[in-house]
């Protein structure tokens, strides 16, 4: 007979994020059929009492288990990948999966350095025999197209020099473009040419000044103003306040009710953390990770995010 303790261990090993491989090995290597039967009866989350008197696996539980086991494999594959290939594949996947995943395209295009983004574009040529721009341009049909194509095509100046005057007038231009569209629902702010060229060609230091200037002339920050246009909001966030964006991604991924995609985002962030400034953010979430994540996946996360590596 399985004791209640073991049932609890099994439940825990299969819950949360990732899987506790060690515990599972020790349970399974010590269990015979009778033992396993009582464990099945004890884990109602994973096994259902079938009408023909046997305990069957809950199909949706298997599906989520598959995803949890896959987390370790994914983090291994992604972490070992050359950053260029990694970003190119992330682009392709996001494009294939459609509009709800376009934030990944924004995330990569906006948080990589100019040369890293360039590298991703080169890798894309090698992997898919097309340019990322042409794939985006021909597959994205909606209002996000112009913004996304322009974002991946950027090769931003990376020096510190900023023209205050230009930043001031561009903050005004953005304010006008956004305000005009809050009333008119036919055209979104992300389709406005002014918005696009400012956000997709200006350097990041310049845009940070634009962000500050905007605060001076409006009651809200640009991101607060853009609550309705999520993709545009994320664009501004990734360019001007990336820490906010990453904090949110981590937060969502580590919640009780985190969905598969949110957890995948965690893998993505961890795999890219050397190229992106996650200092401090990872430390904030260390406890949550220890609490909610299991097994080899957890070890990788904690190991990669450990302070002394940064």
């Amino acid at each position, binding site marked *: 007979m399985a004791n209640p303790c073991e049932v609890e261990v099994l439940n825990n090993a299969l819950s949360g994020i990732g899987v506790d491989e060690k515990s599972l090995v020790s349970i399974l290597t010590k269990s015979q059929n009778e033992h396993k039967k009582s464990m099945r009866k004890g884990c109602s989350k994973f096994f259902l009492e079938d009408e023909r008197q046997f305990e069957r696996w809950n199909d949706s539980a298997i599906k989520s288990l598959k995803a949890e086991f896959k987390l370790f494999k994914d983090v291994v594959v992604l972490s070992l990948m050359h950053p260029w290939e990694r970003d190119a594949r992330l682009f392709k996947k996001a494009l294939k999966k459609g509009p709800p995943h376009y934030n990944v395209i924004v995330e990569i295009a906006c948080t990589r350095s100019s040369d890293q983004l360039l590298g991703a574009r080169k890798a894309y040529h090698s992997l898919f025999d*097309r*340019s990322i721009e042409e794939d985006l341009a*021909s597959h994205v049909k909606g209002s996000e197209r112009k913004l996304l194509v322009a974002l991946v095509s950027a090769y931003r100046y990376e020096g510190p020099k900023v023209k205050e005057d230009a930043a001031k007038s561009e903050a005004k231009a953005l304010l006008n473009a956004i305000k005009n569209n809050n009333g008119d629902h036919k055209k979104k702010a992300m389709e406005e040419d002014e918005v696009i060229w400012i956000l997709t060609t200006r350097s990041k230091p310049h845009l940070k000044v634009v962000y500050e200037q905007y605060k001076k002339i409006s009651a809200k920050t640009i991101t607060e103003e853009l609550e309705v246009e999520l993709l545009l909001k994320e664009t501004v966030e990734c360019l001007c306040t990336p820490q906010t964006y990453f904090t949110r991604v981590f937060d969502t991924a580590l919640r009780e009710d985190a969905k598969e995609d949110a957890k995948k985002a965690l893998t993505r962030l961890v795999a890219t953390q050397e190229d992106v400034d996650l200092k401090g953010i990872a430390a904030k979430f260390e406890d949550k990770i220890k609490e909610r994540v299991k097994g080899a996946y957890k070890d990788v996360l904690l190991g990669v995010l450990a302070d002394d590596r940064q």
Partner: protein
Amino acid sequence: MATIDVPEQVSVLADAEALRKACKGWGTDEKAIISVLGHRNAVQRKQIRLAYEDLYQEDLIKRLESELSGDFEEAVYRWILDPADRDAVLANVAIKKLSPDHHVIVEISCTRSPEELLAVRRAYQARYKHSLEEDVAAHTKGDTRKLLVALVSAFRYDGEEINTRVANSEAKVLHEAVKDKEFNHEEIIRILSTRSKMQLMATFNRYRDDHGTTITKNLEGDSGDEFLKTLRPTIRCLNDPKKYFEKVLRNSIRRVGTDEDALTRVIVTRAEKDLKDVKELYYKRNSVPLDQAVAKDTSGDYKALLLTLLGKED
């Protein structure tokens, strides 16, 4: 094929000395400058600059700028720069004009290879502390801006793979656009600025096969609006760059008074690339050798440099 004539053996030290000698003292020996620089390729010119700096603790380019003047000086300045740096300077000059020279931006972004265009963007940033895209965006408006920014931002796939289905459908899109003169700018910009050059070739060929005439023929006619004025050179450059350059040369010479800017630009930027082919096209089209036409229309040291770059024997 290139037109410049580079000797088998080159000593950059001897060259640096020769140039120093040409600049020292009263007046300048322009012939000597032409005979050295006019017969050196980009790598050699760079090495000569370095050697000169080493020997004389002076920037050769600055020295030449102070010694020379007029069209000759401009031509020498453009010739001596690294190709990417040169294109960056040309682009900046074109952008900063009161009425920007869109066709120069088009020319640079459409006739250079993806890697070359990338190098231009880097050189531009190094020189001007801005990205090429942001300067183009800040100085243009409307659909012209969208087209130009898209063209300079492009990093086209440079392989041989083409998709015939795409070529078919996009040839149709282009035809619709051109025929009605109701240019669906978004689609045109998308196709012309993102597709690879091979893919565009396939599309243009398909267009010609389907409609019996080339797309460029269909674009001729009235001058049209700003967008059209930028669209035409775009399609021409992507469709047949050598033919495009022949036309620029033809127009630059034909004018009452020569358009030295255009003449210098084409000769200097193509001398190490395909100027020979352009020369042949010119002769076919005008029954006059390009050398002859240039000689007739220009004079002095400026003429001498151009002719040297065109491959004339000293």
